[in-house]
């Protein structure tokens, strides 16, 4: 898998655990132990109440498409062979939203509110990307 040429996530001390769980094929985010808000992207404090006490809760991985775009031209050489491809914002069942790719559906059939479910793409030995497939 050393031939993967696309940009990888920039892993830092705020998001290292998130990507570690992804490697184990678990979608986990920080839930504030004070107010219950689930935040994303990962960070040291809750943007709602500023508590620094949080737990990494496992999410169902289910959600629906909040919005999406379809790249018709390549903005990066490593994606040239993927055109057309989609980047979507997923509304997760538990509340937060995240960007990802949608698999298993033709771009022409994409719609806002299409139900999706997480699946993990092991792109390198170190990194697994949470992606989403359309479900009926």
């Amino acid at each position, binding site marked *: 898998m050393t031939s993967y040429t696309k940009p990888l996530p920039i892993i830092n001390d705020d998001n290292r655990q998130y990507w570690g769980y992804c490697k184990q094929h678990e979608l986990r985010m920080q839930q504030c132990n004070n107010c219950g808000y689930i935040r994303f992207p990962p960070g040291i404090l809750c943007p709602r109440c500023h508590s620094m006490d949080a737990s990494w809760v496992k999410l169902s991985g289910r959600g629906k498409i909040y*919005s999406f775009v379809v*790249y*018709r031209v390549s*903005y*990066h050489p490593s994606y040239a062979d993927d055109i057309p491809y989609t*980047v979507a914002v997923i509304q997760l069942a538990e509340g937060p939203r995240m960007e990802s790719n949608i698999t298993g559906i033709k771009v022409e059939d994409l719609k806002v509110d299409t139900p999706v479910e997480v699946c993990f793409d092991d792109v390198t030995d170190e990194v697994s990307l949470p992606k989403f497939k359309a479900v009926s």
Partner: protein
Amino acid sequence: MESLKDKAAIVGVGYTPQGKVPGRTSLSFHLEAARNAISDAGLKIQDIDGLLIQPAMGDPSVTAALVAQYLGVRVRFLSALDAFGASAGCQAQFAAMAVAHGLANYVLCTYGENARSGVSEYGAALNGGLEYGLFGPAACYAIAARRAMHEFGTGPETWKEIAVAQRRWANLNPRASMYTRPMTYQDYYDARILVEPFRLFDICQISDSGRAFIVTTAERARGLKKRPVYIMGMGQDHPATNPQQATFLTGPTGAKLSGEQALKMAGITLKDIGACEIYDCFTYTVEVELMDYGFYGRGEGKDFLKAGRLGPGGDFPLNTSGGLLSEAYQMGFTPLTEAVVQLRGEAGDRQLGAPTRTREPEVILVSNNGGVMQTHSTLILRK
């Protein structure tokens, strides 16, 4: 507390060559724009005692102190101010505060960047997402635009009106990158789709260029070379939230609160606004901002925005230089400087009033928007 209404004025604007201008540093654009603004105001180099710069997005080497150094100025008020595309409007507000309180007499505000020729991945990683192939601000705004299509049924039918109207203004502006290139509705539809739902002409074109303006007190302004343009009202609102979690992609953006504050300070209503210079990094941005300022209700852009109204001869003149879409992408400096030029009566063929069969404005609303609608500033400027 005393209001800042009419306490400060913009007294100089400076331009540089713009579009594709290879072989130049970002710093050089700051300097040339600054030089031209000082000359436009009829000031001497030594008069400048305040400097605010907007850092180049792709070139961190340009700092406020470096610009001061190369300009040969010794200032007593200095900072780099970065609120993305909202920076020019924010600079004007900080500068107004500084001169009103005697911290400086003449605050020079600059931006410059070799964004087109010198930077390979301009704005690529604004909010992350590269690991999913989310490259460039256009896609981030296209996500917002798609959501607006879903929520209130807007789309290319509305956006084409903005693109075509602004192109008609650009065709009257020799400085505009699209000066010699007219655009029809068919041209808009025929343009290639870059990132759905945006076509080429929904997206502004980044530019190698710089721009600057100078703020001083209303009192000092009256003794200078050019007719002063007074800052009547101002406001900022920065929703800041990462666009993934944002609730404002379909409004209300920062235009709403910053606009309400600015109008309240100015003591006027939307009816008094003679023209709008609205930050237009993408066509949809204009639709949502004008909606949030209150010119029309939620989702009513498709009825309000007609190119005949927005262009020369129309009753709602919009982005009269051609804007970011058709003049040049100079961040918030493009709408701000155009408002100044119009209120001075120096806009030539595109001058609001008799030359373009439009109402001659006493007051212009200037909006600046940045990030993915994460920052916003509003200015109300008057003659």
